[in-house]
C-alpha cells in the first residue's frame, strides 16, 4: 500500500479540510520550520517567507491579541518590530483584537475574526497573509478555515511550537528571529532593486 504524504497547500481545499496534524504533519523543533508540511531548516523557511511576501500582490499581516494589547513587558517593543517588518515587506495590517464570534457583524475591511477569517480574505482579496500573536488554537482554526475556503497563502510566525495548518510556519519566534527575518527581507529587496 502506498501512502502519499499530506501537503499543506494553497486552497480552496473545500469545506472542513482536515487538521494537518491528523494527516501526520509534525511540528518543527527549535531551529527548524515547516514549509507546506515538510520540516526544513529555519533559515530556508525565512527565505521562503521573504520571497512569498515580496512577490505577493496583496500581502497582509494579521497581528493577534498577544501583540495588539500591551499586556506585559516587551510586547510593545515586539509589536513595533512586527510593524516595521510589515512595512518593509509592503504588507498592510488588519488586526484580530479578540476571538469573539461576532458573526456576521465584523467589518472585514478593518478586522479579522478567527471564526470566519475567510470574510476578511475575500473582502480584501488577500493572496498572502501572516499570522502573528494569535493564540495557538484560534490560529489553527483560522488557518484551517482559510485553507478550506480561500486561495490565500498562509504564513505563521509563532512564538511557541508552530502551526501545522499554515503553509509556512516558524516556531520559537522571538526578537532575534524577527530581526533576522527583517534582515533577509531587507537584503532581498535590495537585490530586487539592484
Amino acid at each position, binding site marked *: 500500500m502506498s501512502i502519499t504524504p499530506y501537503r499543506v497547500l494553497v486552497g480552496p481545499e473545500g469545506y472542513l479540510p482536515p487538521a494537518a496534524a491528523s494527516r501526520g504533519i509534525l511540528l518543527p523543533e527549535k531551529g527548524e520550520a515547516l514549509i507546506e508540511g515538510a520540516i526544513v531548516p529555519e533559515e530556508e523557511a525565512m527565505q521562503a517567507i521573504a520571497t512569498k511576501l515580496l512577490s505577493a500582490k496583496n500581502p497582509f499581516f494579521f497581528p493577534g491579541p498577544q501583540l*495588539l*494589547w*500591551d499586556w506585559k513587558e516587551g510586547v510593545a517593543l515586539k*509589536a*513595533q518590530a512586527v510593524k516595521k517588518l510589515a512595512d518593509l515587506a509592503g504588507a498592510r495590517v*488588519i488586526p484580530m*483584537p479578540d476571538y*469573539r464570534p*461576532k*458573526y456576521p457583524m465584523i467589518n472585514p475591511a478593518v478586522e479579522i475574526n478567527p471564526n470566519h477569517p475567510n470574510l476578511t480574505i475575500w473582502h480584501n482579496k488577500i493572496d498572502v497573509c501572516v499570522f502573528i500573536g494569535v493564540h495557538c488554537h484560534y490560529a489553527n482554526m483560522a488557518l484551517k478555515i482559510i485553507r478550506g475556503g480561500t486561495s490565500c497563502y498562509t504564513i505563521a510566525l509563532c512564538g511557541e511550537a508552530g502551526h501545522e495548518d499554515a503553509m509556512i510556519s516558524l516556531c520559537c519566534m522571538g526578537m532575534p528571529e524577527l530581526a533576522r527575518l527583517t534582515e533577509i527581507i531587507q537584503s532581498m529587496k535590495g537585490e530586487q532593486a539592484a
Partner: protein
Amino acid sequence: MSKDFLRISPAFEDVMPAEYRELVASGPYGKGYGISDLGSHKELLEEHPLCAGCGLALSLRLTLSVLPAPEDTVIVGSTGCSALAFPQVALHNIHSLFGNQNAVASGLKRALKLRFPDKHKDVVVVAGDGATADIGLDMVMQSWFRGELITTIMLDNEAYANTGGQESGMSPKGAVLYMAPKGKKFQKVNMPELAREAGCVYVAAVSPANPKRLGKAIKRAILVAREVGPTYVQIFAPCPTNFKFKPQETIKRIKEREKDGTYLMREYISPEAQEYLAAMEGGTKDE
C-alpha cells in the same frame, strides 16, 4: 485580566478598529459604573440580534452596566436567546452546553481561585429559564448545594423563545404559546424559593421595569458570591414575540404582572450575607 492590561500596543494603535479604541478610552473597565452612568460611556453591549422590545435585551444591558468589576468577570451562558447576544458582548464569556452552565461555572470559579488566589474573579452565570429551571436544574441546584461561589442570573422570559415558543417550567399556568396550544397545565416553578432552600445566601426576583432595583440586586449578588455563598437573581424579561404583545408594551406588561400578583418581586438576604453587605455598602453610594 486587570484593567492595566487594557492598553493597545502603540505600534498598532492606528489599525485597531474604532470599537476597541473606544472601549479602552471610555469603556466601563475599572470605573465602577452603575445604572445612572448609562449613556455616559462606551457600553459592553451595543449591538445585538434580539427581537424588538425583547425584555431580555434590556435586562442584559442593565445587568452588564452594573458589574462591579467587568475586567475581572467571566460570564457563563447557555443555549437560549441570550446566547445570541453574547458574541457581541465585550467581556470574557463561555457558552456551555444546554443546561451545563452551573457545572462549567463551578469548575471555572475553582480554577480561577487557584490561578489568582489573591484576586476576586467574578463568575456569573447568565442563562434563560429553560436552561436554569428545566434542562439545567440538576446542575444549577447541585452547584447551590455545594455552596459554589458563583452568581446565577436567570433571564426569565417564561418560554423557550428562540425555538418557536414551547412552554418552560417558568411559563405561568395556562400560558398558550405557538408550540403549547393547549395551555400549560401546572404552576410556574418557584425558583427563588428553591434557591433559598438549596443554599443561596442572596436571592432576588427583579425586572427591568425598575432598573435601580435590578442594578442593586445584581451588584449585591455578585459581591456576596465573592465570599459568602451562591447567589441567585431572577429577572422577569417578557417576550413580545412569543407572548404576542407589542414591543413597546414590555415594561407595561411587567408592571401589570407585578400589580396583579402573578410575578412577585422579592429579595432574600441571609444573615451572613447581610453582615457582609453592610460592611461592603457602608459609606458607598447606593445604586
